[in-house]
């Protein structure tokens, strides 16, 4: 037993010697001992987690390489896309854009009062805690789960999708925006408060003018995100282009799928670049 302990001690001290950086001596004789790098912990832990994940998911790199040609086979079948199909996807594509637009606007507007309630401007500690807690929980719901829930409430279709997007945007925007409120200059707020305004009036008059640009920018950022979200909502039946996409994929009509993906990419790119340009001007 004593031998075993001595062995472990010896091993530990040997390991420490390896990972301890060499002391550096300055020309005036001072000795500096560099700190042990945290990488000696981070790298083994990450390696362990990665290996464990590979065994859990049965991930196989050889499979990824061997079957990847199959991906290009499908892409090949999508080319050329079936442009004659364009008329049939125009309506669902517009529906997708409108779903995200309306959902984003509703979510962004609703977020304003709740962002105020979550911010340091809210004097009620309990109120702030409750609102923040509620939204932390609400934010854990992925947009697809929200869409399924909304379909249970409102039935399948674009309305459920829009509602899901609105709620999703609402929960995210509350957090993003209350953190912005807390970085605003409080001086004007104190000034307006001292003139006899109530806190909501002072917030609206003194804090919001500092933040409108960032608020619109956040809203546009959410719109970009939601267009991509809206495209997959159809998979669970919540309206938009996703419904057509999943149907065409299931029937393996690859030229149609090609056109849907092409139109989707162009739409997302156009909206993202327009939005980026507006945001650049806002800030």
């Amino acid at each position, binding site marked *: 037993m004593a031998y075993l302990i001595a062995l472990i001690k010896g091993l530990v001290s040997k390991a420490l010697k390896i990972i301890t950086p060499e002391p550096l001596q300055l020309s005036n004789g001072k000795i500096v001992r560099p700190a042990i790098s945290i990488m000696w912990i981070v790298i083994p832990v990450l390696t362990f987690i990665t290996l464990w994940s590979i065994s859990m998911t049965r991930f196989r790199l050889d499979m990824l390489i061997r079957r990847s040609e199959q991906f290009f086979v499908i892409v090949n079948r999508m080319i050329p896309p079936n442009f004659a199909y364009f008329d049939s996807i125009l309506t669902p594509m517009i529906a997708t854009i409108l779903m995200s637009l309306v959902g984003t606007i509703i979510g962004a507007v609703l977020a304003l009062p709740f962002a105020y309630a979550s911010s340091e401007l809210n004097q009620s500690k309990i109120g702030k805690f409750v609102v923040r807690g509620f939204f932390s929980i609400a934010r854990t719901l992925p947009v697809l789960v929200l869409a399924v829930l909304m379909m249970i409430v409102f039935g399948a279709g674009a309305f459920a999708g829009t509602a899901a997007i609105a709620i999703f945007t609402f929960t995210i925007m509350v957090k993003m925006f209350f953190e912005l409120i807390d970085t605003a200059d409080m001086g004007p707020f104190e000034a*307006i408060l001292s003139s006899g*305004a109530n806190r909501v*009036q002072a917030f609206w008059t003194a804090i919001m003018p500092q933040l409108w640009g960032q608020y619109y920018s956040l809203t546009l950022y959410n719109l970009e995100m939601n267009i991509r979200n809206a495209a997959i909502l159809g998979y669970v039946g919540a309206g938009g282009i996703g419904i057509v996409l999943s149907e065409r994929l299931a029937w393996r009509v690859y030229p149609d799928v090609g056109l849907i993906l092409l139109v989707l990419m162009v739409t997302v790119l156009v909206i993202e670049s327009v939005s980026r340009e507006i945001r650049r001007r806002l800030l």
Partner: protein
Amino acid sequence: MIQFTDVVKRYPNGVEALKGVSLTIEQGEFVAIIGLSGAGKSTLLRAINQMHTITSGSLKVNGVEVSSLKGKSLRRFRRGIGMVFQSFNLIKRTTVIKNVLAARVADMSLVQSLLSFYSKSDKIIALEALDQVGILEKAYIRADQLSGGQQQRVALARTLAQQPSIILADEPVASLDPVTSAQVMNDFLKINEALNITVVANMHHVDLALKYARRVIGIKEGIIVYDGPASGINQQTLKEIYGRDLTEDDLMGEH
């Protein structure tokens, strides 16, 4: 009339900023409060409009016990008291006129203020306030485009738009250069004399305080150690207030 009787202010961390302050300020006076930073000047000023609540004692403004005010009655009371700050506290990303109009929201309903629905008479009040401090032509320029002195004038116009009977000024010229400081102090003096508005100003620079205020209150560690005419201040009293000889930093110089 502002009436302090044995006012004590103790902060939650135990610091006693005011230790039994008693003083009376008549309507229309121009009072400067001097003292080291941390002496309680800012607390004294903010007690008057209840931006800081007092711990004990009595504080009456025009006969109303200020510490008894809450919610709506407190907000209505504050409308009559303007406040000016060292850092101006303007809403920088918006126009001068909107900054001045911001002083009118206290008089408006919540819906009106959310829609920024300012009446014609509000706009005229705001423009006249800007005219009084001589920067009417800057009305539609963004506040952050103005110099420091101009920004402080906008802040002064903002409090004037409240049509107050008292203006509290917390180090109004401490961030300004000597020439601009003199201009802004002259604005205060003009408003004090023309409109009979009481001005209570915390002053970092002793020479400015003595030049513009008729009455000076010296405060040291929460206790009033001098209260009298500016002409009664001498080396001895200053040493009492500051606990040391004056330094270069306590004077604005060249005015």
